[in-house]
């Protein structure tokens, strides 16, 4: 990691930490209409971006540093989101339309009489939290174990990750799969006893998301700077060399993949209470591809660039879909083409590479004299 990137990373951490502290103040501590007042809808919007940024950092860890272009990371994000959604559903209790104390509304509607086993325990937050990590973690472990052991790499791996998320997309659509089918999970009331409608909770979720993003960044940073991180990059650049050096390449990949999946899932779990709904469309293959675009725009293999890319592209998306809705997809496509053609290393990659080239030039002149 170059020095410039490291500086950019610390600036980013500082900005996020400030946001985590100052946004609650700007929202709750100032009256409506004051110069610094931040309306809660904006807080929720940015909270959503931060969750996407966590997903982007997670994706960058495997794509940027290990060369695994996962086009299925949206699935891990969505699984984390579903685990949180299931907890929130069970908190509704008798306040649902059918007022069933145990069964969520959609189950009553489907004429179910008992809670499916998969839903047991989700009334406890600790259990739900465990599942947020365990379900996507185990999926990534199983998927990665087979894929990396069979030495599926490159575009073939990308395609089967797409297949994975598409399979889940189809499965979650089915009513009898037991997770709300087409409509997904929604109408949440409260989390840990606090109403999701209250400004305090909304702002609190924003701050927690900012902290989670900081932690995701710092954990990923520690990973890529360790000797394991060097091995990760080495696998990306010359996989067979690593095998002939005696490294178990599949284990190296698997660890990064599982950590990344869990990180993405935490992003998804924080996303759901802020947007108030989780449905199968979160598994749509397009979502995962969009996440790869955020990382490409910000600069893969930079971590901080991935986070910035996610926030910037989604900000642009919000603007475009509001102002010029019919042009958003064209804009996204154009962005991807431009980045690929002119900034193959993304925004952050450009910065560190220009500086790097300059420094390498200095070295060359030194040796020449």
């Amino acid at each position, binding site marked *: 990691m170059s020095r410039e990137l490291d500086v950019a990373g610390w600036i980013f951490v500082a900005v996020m930490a400030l946001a985590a502290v100052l946004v609650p103040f700007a929202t709750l501590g100032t009256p409506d209409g004051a110069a610094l007042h931040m309306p809660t809808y904006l807080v929720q919007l940015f909270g959503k971006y931060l969750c996407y940024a966590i997903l982007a950092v997670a994706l960058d860890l495997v794509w940027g540093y290990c060369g695994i272009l996962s086009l299925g990371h949206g699935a891990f994000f969505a699984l984390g989101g579903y685990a949180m959604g299931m907890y929130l559903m069970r908190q509704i209790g008798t306040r649902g339309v059918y007022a069933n104390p145990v069964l969520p509304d959609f189950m009553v509607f489907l004429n179910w009489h008992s809670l499916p086993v998969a839903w047991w325990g989700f009334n406890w937050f600790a259990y739900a939290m465990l599942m947020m990590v365990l379900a996507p973690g185990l999926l990534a472990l199983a998927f990665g174990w087979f894929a990396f052991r069979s030495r599926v790499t490159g575009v073939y791996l990308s395609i089967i990750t797409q297949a994975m998320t598409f399979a889940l997309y189809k499965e979650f659509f089915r009513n009898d799969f037991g997770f709300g089918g087409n409509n997904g999970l929604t109408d949440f009331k409260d989390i840990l006893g606090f109403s999701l409608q209250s400004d305090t909770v909304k702002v609190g979720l924003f701050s927690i998301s900012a902290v989670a993003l900081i932690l995701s960044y710092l954990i990923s940073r520690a*990973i890529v700077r*360790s*000797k*394991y991180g*060097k*091995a990760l*990059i*080495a696998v990306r*650049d*010359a996989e*067979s*060399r*690593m*095998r*002939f*050096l*005696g*490294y*178990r*390449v599949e*284990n*190296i990949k698997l*660890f990064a993949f599982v950590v990344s999946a869990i990180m993405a899932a935490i992003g998804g779990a924080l996303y759901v209470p802020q947007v108030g709904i989780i449905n199968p469309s979160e598994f749509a293959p397009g979502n995962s591809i969009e996440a790869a675009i955020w990382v490409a725009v910000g600069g893969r293999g930079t971590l901080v660039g991935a986070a910035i890319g996610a926030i910037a592209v989604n900000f642009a998306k919000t603007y475009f879909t509001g102002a010029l809705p019919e042009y958003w997809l064209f804009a996204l496509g154009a962005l991807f083409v431009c980045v690929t053609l002119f900034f193959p290393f993304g925004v952050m990659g450009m910065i560190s590479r220009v500086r790097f080239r300059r420094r*390498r030039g200095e*070295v060359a002149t030194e040796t020449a004299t």
Partner: protein
Amino acid sequence: MNEENSKLTSSLLYLDNVQVTFDGYRALRGLSLALAPGEMRAIIGPNGAGKTTMMDVITGKTRPDIGDIYFEGRHDLTTMDEAEIATLGIGRKFQKPTVFENHTVNDNILLAAKAPRTVRAMLGAKGSAEINQTIAHILERIRLSAVRERLAGSLSHGQKQWLEIGMLLAQDPKLLLVDEPVAGMTDAETAATASMLKEIAKEHSVVVVEHDMAFVRELDVKVTVLHEGAVLAEGALDQVSADERVVEVYLGR
């Protein structure tokens, strides 16, 4: 049979009747070879003789259809994968220099150096004065001390070849397989590489595959000539180059 057995147990590397077929093409047709501990061997042969395929079957990249490959008389290499074989102590240098271009010269050696290779050990690994010393020592031997902090990708072709040799030294294998180490090198670099390899051969067993006859002469070791996936002749360079069959298939052209 008894003679075969003693040959097996006394050899560091033992190949017997190894056959490999790719889509009907018989790359190795009953290759047999025995390498004594501490020996340095040069392998020559025309293109398509099976030199690289031989490296591949020894290092686990390719599985032979039939035949035995034993290391140190007891490890059956035909049942192991690349990482296991590397861990046993067989290092390999590719024909095209393969270094980690985005890592510094220092980190290339660091990754190759003997150390626990599990994810957990690497996550907690700390640099030490000892490993720094080892790296410095190796860089001196491969003449790259001055470029220790440079990215490997910015090295010249010859320097990359040396770096890869240095990585093998750091790996400290019992047996080194070196595939065309002087391809694309200048004469001065070739001479330096020859002395580097001879130095290495003092402490390691080495198999060198090479086209460059001047280089093979400089190594001054026993030569095995491969032709159409089997051994054609074996002995000192002068002896095999006097062999009529060798002259016909290889040297004569």
